[in-house]
């Protein structure tokens, strides 16, 4: 359920990066102040545990598929929400870097979906409410299972919203929701069951681990935190989407703003002019003007529906050819570099 870079727009990715970074900064301060920094080794090792635990699959009855532990809720129960959020976030960073799970831009989304939602929504608002102060075994299990289901449903919904808001995928919102939510309902129930079993296990073996928790996690500061996060998300999202919607090319628009000109001056002189002149001279395909850089989105909106197929074909073929040539060139550069590296290490021998 990791969100992927390839489905994200910079506006959505950036917004959630900002939100998650704010969350990490806040929780880091909280952990430093409240828990004392010497607890960090425990969090680190438990992060490694979560990482290893996620590799152990169990079968999901009745579906034939298998799932693994998300772990956000489990850690929130064991460590409290702040430390749990940091731990899950660190696991996600490692997964993004080592296994390219999701990717770097999507990291903010993943930390939000799999860390923030279980630790700061499902845990305080569902788990603590149901479990109460001194839960018996049954109450503990019910609270865990319900909270796991809620957390995973929210996470899956987060993936849907982020994907649809990015507009890279064409999946309609309703279809995607109907696809994601039921799938994650089954996974959530099993995950809740497994989490509850682990909590019960720990409760039996070392009850002091669970009792040591700060019981005030559901108190008011958390609500303030939630509101602050929502405000931060709304503001960043608003600003970024304004950037993005003003012009399909948010970057281009912002650069125009920064340089203070309505349009970039480049078209008249410099590299662009040279390239454009070159392009004009060598253009044989009929419609090289079809996609002047800034009009990229016109295909998307179908504004050019009246265009004759001929011109589209021309531009598309030159796109395909050009793309392949560029790719070949990229590999060629790679080979050249490799050859140079070899030559250097062969000739230089002990250049260390």
């Amino acid at each position: 359920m990791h969100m992927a870079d390839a489905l994200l727009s910079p506006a959505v990715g950036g917004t959630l990066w900002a939100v998650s970074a704010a969350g990490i900064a806040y929780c880091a301060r909280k952990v430093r102040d409240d828990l004392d920094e010497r607890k960090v080794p425990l969090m680190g090792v438990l992060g490694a545990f979560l990482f290893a635990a996620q590799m152990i699959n169990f079968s999901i009855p009745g579906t034939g598929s298998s799932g693994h532990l998300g772990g956000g809720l489990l850690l929130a129960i064991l460590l409290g929400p702040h430390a749990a959020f940091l731990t899950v976030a660190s696991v996600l960073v490692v997964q993004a870097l080592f296994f390219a799970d999701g990717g770097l831009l999507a990291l903010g989304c993943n930390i939000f979906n799999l860390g923030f939602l279980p630790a700061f929504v499902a845990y305080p608002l569902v788990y603590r409410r149901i479990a109460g102060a001194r839960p018996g075994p049954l109450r503990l299990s019910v609270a865990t299972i319900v909270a796991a289901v809620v957390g995973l449903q929210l996470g899956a919904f987060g993936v849907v919203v982020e994907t649809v808001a990015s507009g890279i995928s064409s999946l309609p919102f309703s279809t995607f929701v109907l696809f994601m939510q039921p799938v994650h309902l089954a996974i959530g129930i099993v995950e809740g069951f497994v989490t509850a079993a682990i909590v019960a296990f720990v409760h039996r073996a070392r009850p002091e681990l669970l009792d040591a928790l700060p019981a005030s996690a559901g108190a008011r500061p958390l609500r303030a935190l939630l509101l602050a996060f929502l405000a931060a998300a709304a503001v960043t999202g608003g600003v970024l989407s304004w950037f993005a919607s003003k012009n399909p090319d948010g970057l281009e628009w912002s650069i125009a703003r920064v340089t203070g000109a309505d349009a970039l001056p480049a078209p008249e002189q410099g590299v662009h002019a040279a390239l454009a002149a070159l392009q004009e001279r060598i253009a044989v395909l009929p419609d090289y003007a079809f996609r002047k850089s800034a009009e990229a989105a016109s295909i998307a909106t179908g504004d050019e529906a009246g265009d004759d197929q001929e011109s589209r074909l021309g531009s598309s073929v030159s796109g395909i050819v050009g793309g392949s040539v560029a790719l070949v060139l990229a590999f060629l550069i790679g080979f050249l570099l490799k050859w140079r590296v070899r030559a250097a290490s062969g000739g230089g021998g002990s250049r260390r």
Partner: protein
Amino acid sequence: MASIDSIAENLRHLDEFARADTVVHRLDPRAKVVVTLAFVVIVASFDRYTVAALMPFAVFPIALAVLGGLPAGYLAKNVALAIPFALLIGLFNPFFDREVVFHLGSLPVTAGWISCASIAVRAVLTLGAALVLVALTGFPAVCAALEGLGMPRVFAAQMQFLHRYLFVLVDDAARSTRALALRSGGNAPRPTTVASLLGLLLLRTWQRAERIHLAMLARAYQGELHSRETWRFAAAEVAFVIGWVSLFCILRYYDLTRLLGTLVARVLP
């Protein structure tokens, strides 16, 4: 899902690659992190129907991988392993976006297929760049770089610990699952079995953490991890950052591929 053993193997490989000594390894990690982030954002900023204009961006991961001595097969295999989710979602595009954009011969090409291809290309580029970054920098150095760029120290320490004990715990989990697999006769384990396995692993982990903590306290740990390595953001780093970022900007605003396409069409009869 790959077996735990192969994942552990993979992790070790990555750490080994990071220990090499090449031009790319010697760069300040901050420079590499900044350039990789810029790369990912710029690749993501293209609109959904862009395919060809993304191709030249492949030069970044390829050049770095080659200069850093990263085997192409390793990179290709790991990127391929990580792609499925994006591709799965991308494959829905052709069903919902059926407008025919052009005909290739007699084959109609719809906008949905183009955006699907775009998602695949994006996935390869962004995942490849992230893998190249960590394989040529090493995780501790990436953490240090992120800390240098403003990440809270507690979180940086958290990630350092996670990385250090990852190998130990992955091995532990691998042993437990192997033992479980040998006893369950080829059936997928039931959730209850896995739960008690994970519970035991958790208790062992907790005890291990307590031992580690005491051992660290005995060695004067005061909440801070020190590194032997020192980095300097020198001229080479400045050149690296400015060079790559300006190349990305040029590729973002001038469609090099169209130029190449027309050039090729001109040269060929």
